[in-house]
């Protein structure tokens, strides 16, 4: 299949960047990233700079791949990361526009690669629990209700890719934030730091320059791991309990 690609090319963080047009011959069995690999081989052969893009496991679980395909983070297929998107969903002669995630808090490093270090800062601010090291705890010592376990697990599916931020018209990372807070807050191990955590993580989210949530739901629709929108409600509930409700000590 012959495709026309319009790819965002940007030398470095300071470069203004532009969309460049390339023709590429792809096969329907290829993954989207393999199609880009083909393009890059051609670019290297002709002495041009290959398109820089993030990728690692190519199994849809690491959260490294990003990019916005035809205006949609991770492309048109629901609940799918870019690396798991396949060319069989495209037709011969299609034109595909490929851009980096757009967010003030995710500056472009090069081409399609953005700096998602802001997520690391949010995690550092509270994405941990206190646990004794040494021998493993007794497996049945902490009883967890099924509903809490399910909800924690659903939230723990978040791979931290940043598609929620890329999709959000306000550039908010509330879905990511809510996923982490729900994941830890639903479990007994997450209780000691629960209210400290939400205040620290929300403030770090703020200082990183992410926007506020208007509950459009675009994030949950774009999320390749289908994190439910109600984790944002959980985030707000815990945040208000910690601040307005005074549950955060010290």
């Amino acid at each position, binding site marked *: 299949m012959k495709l026309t690609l*319009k790819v*965002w090319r940007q030398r470095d*963080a300071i470069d203004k960047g532009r*969309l460049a047009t390339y023709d590429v011959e792809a096969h329907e069995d290829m993954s989207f990233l393999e199609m880009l690999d083909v393009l890059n081989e051609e670019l290297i052969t002709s002495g041009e700079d290959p398109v820089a893009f993030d990728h690692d496991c190519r199994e849809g679980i690491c959260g490294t791949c990003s990019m*916005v*395909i*035809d*205006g*949609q983070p991770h492309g048109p297929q629901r609940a799918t990361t870019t690396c798991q998107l396949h060319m069989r969903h495209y037709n011969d002669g299609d034109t*595909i*526009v*490929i*851009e980096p995630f*757009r*967010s*003030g*808090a995710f*500056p*472009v*490093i090069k081409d399609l690669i953005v*700096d998602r*270090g802001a997520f690391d800062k949010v995690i550092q601010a509270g994405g941990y629990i206190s646990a004794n090291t040494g021998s493993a705890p007794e497996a049945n010592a902490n009883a967890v209700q099924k509903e809490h376990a399910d909800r924690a697990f659903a939230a723990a599916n978040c791979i931290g890719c940043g598609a929620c931020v890329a*999709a*959000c*018209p*306000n*550039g*908010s990372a509330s879905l990511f934030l809510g996923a982490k807070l729900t994941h830890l807050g639903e479990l007994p191990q997450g209780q000691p730091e629960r209210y400290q955590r939400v205040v620290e993580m*929300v*403030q770090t*989210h*703020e*200082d*990183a*320059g*992410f*926007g*506020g*949530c*208007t*509950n*459009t*739901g*675009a994030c949950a*629709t*774009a999320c390749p791991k289908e994190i*439910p*929108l*109600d984790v*944002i*409600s*959980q*985030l*707000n*509930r*815990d*945040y*208000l309990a910690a*601040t*307005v409700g005074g549950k955060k000590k010290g």
Partner: protein
Amino acid sequence: MSEKSRAGGAAAPRRPRTPSALLKFVMAVSGVFLLLYVVLHMIGNLKIFFGPAAIDEYASWLRTILEPALPYEGMLWIVRVVLLVSVIAHIWSATVLTLRARRARPIKYAGGSYRVKGSYAARTMRWGGVIIALFVIYHLLDLTFGVANPNGVHLEVYDNIAAGFAPERWYVTLFYVLAVVALGFHVQHGIFSGIQTLGWSSNSRERTIKVVSTVFAVVLTLGFISVPLAVTFGVV
């Protein structure tokens, strides 16, 4: 690469800013007051269907609520102050959040904007809010201060409404209807968003909350537009 260039300039505020979650809380709480008022206002308007005397008496009664514990127009002024504070808080936090959103999302996608951006109501909250604010200014000049009303006599409520929405002033009626429809959309997303902001939403309740917000918004809109339409078409 240095920390400064990595942050891209726009993303590094100098001092910690008030979290958006807190500003959203301000929006939700002020929104609750505004919504309560709008509901009472809509129900009060329906008095016109019981005749000219009913709505005029209702307007007089509004000024004597809890007399003599409160002075004449006491309750009216309490409500007005609460409304004014709510409106200022609502618009102020919306403005701050909008400016932040612009900085947090500075570049549009060339490959078409993201298709699933939420409902029409969710996407039009900001401009819808501006339209409602402009409408409220006109509405106050029309039926509170009376300067934009052909009759414009204080407490002659029925005559003011009848003159304001007279058939030859169909464009005023049309403007009211459009503004109230904008209010309906604003309320539809506002109720859902407010509940989510206050942390009361959940996966299992989300659908119900959205249906209730929609029904609420439709009833509110119909209740409001019934009055100008009834006057223009000579029903009352």
